């Protein structure tokens, strides 16, 4: 499958995301924030970083980039979209996902290997995992606290839309230890930790993140 990775001004992890897509057995296609052409891709990754310098709010300016008009439209038709870290923030600002991400409750940037439980595995990004799989991938954020009002949180839990949850101690004050969520259909997933940094033994804490990039192929052939 062709997987587009968007580069915004200030994206940091677009290179690693393209590499992870390739290692996951798919073809990585570089997409540009200022171009509304998705170049025929089958799925899109919005990578981590500090797009537009995080000015105003994280993801607030990126939401209105020309490429996002196409991404929002394609997501509405069912195209798989994965937002990692800053990409998760952009998906919330775009209203493709509910809630918002605010500054870590302890006010410090956090960078560490984080244990997670994968709870929703019927998405095109997580179908390679067993339900309840416990994995360790990199977490690095300054504004990773997931917040939403109580009815929204209850709906996310009730509809099984919590994709990943933090294990051990909560690293950023996210409500109900939520690390990642999906839309109702499951094609749009936002995740604060970085699976693209955990796809090779040489770098990172292992290869537990690879499943996010191999799931696309298996979900198509399932």
């Amino acid at each position: 499958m062709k997987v587009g990775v968007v580069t915004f001004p200030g994206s940091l992890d677009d290179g690693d995301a393209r590499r992870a897509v390739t290692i996951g057995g798919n073809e990585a296609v570089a997409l540009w924030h200022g171009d509304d052409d998705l170049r025929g891709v089958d799925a899109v990754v919005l990578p981590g970083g500090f797009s537009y310098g995080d000015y105003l709010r994280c993801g607030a300016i990126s939401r209105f980039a020309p490429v996002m008009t196409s991404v929002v439209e394609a997501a509405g038709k069912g195209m798989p979209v994965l937002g990692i870290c800053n990409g998760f923030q952009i998906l919330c600002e775009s209203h493709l996902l509910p809630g918002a991400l605010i500054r870590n409750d302890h006010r410090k940037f956090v960078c560490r290997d984080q244990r997670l439980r994968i709870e929703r595995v019927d998405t095109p990004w997580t179908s390679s995992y067993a339900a309840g799989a416990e994995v360790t991938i990199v977490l690095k954020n300054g504004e990773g606290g997931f917040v939403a009002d109580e009815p929204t949180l209850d709906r996310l839990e009730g509809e099984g839309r919590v994709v990943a949850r933090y294990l051990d101690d909560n690293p950023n004050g996210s409500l109900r230890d939520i690390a990642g969520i999906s839309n109702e259909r499951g094609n749009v997933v936002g995740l604060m930790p970085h699976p693209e940094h955990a796809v090779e033994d040489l770098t990172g804490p292992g290869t537990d993140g690879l499943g996010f990039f191999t799931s696309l192929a298996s979900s198509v052939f399932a």
Partner: protein
Amino acid sequence: MARYVVDVMPKPEILDPQGKAVLGSLPRLGFAGVSDVRQGKRFEIELDGEPSDALLDEVRAMAEKLLSNPVIEDFEVHLQGEPEGTFA
């Protein structure tokens, strides 16, 4: 020329880590009796034309669409020099 002010504040129920940091610093500087601090943003927006309800609505639309995130923030809009309204 019309100049409007948009104040954006974190919703009361949303944690405000920046406000908390300021709150923690004030007593260390000798300011006693501070019970809470909330930190927000202020935008000053200049528009062509005389002040009008239509312009005020335009600025309100900017606040809704871009300047604030309704999930975590409230905003208030007023013409500079006029009294502030209430946060919605």
